[in-house]
């Protein structure tokens, strides 16, 4: 598992821990109230429910971390719409052999800033899941002082992305 995968799993695990904490708090409250009805109500929707959710989150996080990595890309509104409609793909006249991604949201934001300097078109940062077998065949290099990853065009259909709902800041 790479650095990004590890970071994602840690976040998922922390989320799961918070569910467990909420679940245990629900159980504790019920026991303290010493009321049978309370215990039943709390265990099912509040306590046990949260713990089951935590277990599911942990399972999903472990599975995702084992099989995929996360990368980021700055995209224009036009590309965002195209991805929503057709998924990741190359378009005629532009890059043909692959597509560039950044290992962190900050680096993607910096690539976006450079793009804006070239064409004046605003960017959105996308978080993209890449299967690890695809990631293993990607090119990694430095460009304009940032880390970049080129994913071959014939693998782009396997990527899944969603726009970030915040703007990452870069140094």
């Amino acid at each position, binding site marked *: 598992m790479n650095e990004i995968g590890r970071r994602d799993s840690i976040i998922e695990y922390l989320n799961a821990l918070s569910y467990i904490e909420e679940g245990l708090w629900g159980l504790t409250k019920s026991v303290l109230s010493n009321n049978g009805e309370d215990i039943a109500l709390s265990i099912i929707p509040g306590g046990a429910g949260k713990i089951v959710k935590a277990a599911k989150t942990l399972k999903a996080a472990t599975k995702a971390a084992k099989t995929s990595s996360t990368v980021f890309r700055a995209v224009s509104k036009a590309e965002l719409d195209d991805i929503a409609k057709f998924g990741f793909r190359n378009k*005629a*006249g*532009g*890059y*043909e*052999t*692959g597509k*560039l991604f950044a290992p962190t949201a900050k680096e993607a934001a910096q690539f976006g800033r*450079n793009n804006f*300097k*070239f*064409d004046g078109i605003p960017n959105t940062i996308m978080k993209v899941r890449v299967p690890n077998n695809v990631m293993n065949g990607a*090119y990694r*290099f*430095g*460009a*304009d*002082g940032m880390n*970049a*990853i*080129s994913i*071959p065009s014939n693998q782009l259909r396997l990527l899944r992305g969603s726009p970030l709902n915040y703007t990452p800041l870069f140094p």
Partner: protein
Amino acid sequence: MIKTRAYIRLFEDGRKTPFANGYRPLFNFVDDVKTSGSITLVSKDEFCPGEEGEVEIVFLTKEYLGAEFKKGSTFSFGEGGPPLGEGEILSIEEIKSLC
């Protein structure tokens, strides 16, 4: 921003389709140092594999062009994988700060 005029060759065994005006590959003036540049075509709409000719290239900064960047500097360019073309700087037209 550094505006240059360059002579480029797009390899026949790289891309299979032409690139259009505004194509923004990664350039290598120095080994293992890549920088983005935007290609403006001169009196044509597309540049085909196997073709060579004059273009304008704009770079955002001199930082990654190498200490010896000047007229006559040679470079390769690509999309992150193997090089897809090569070229030579014919002239440096303009240097201006973006700040």
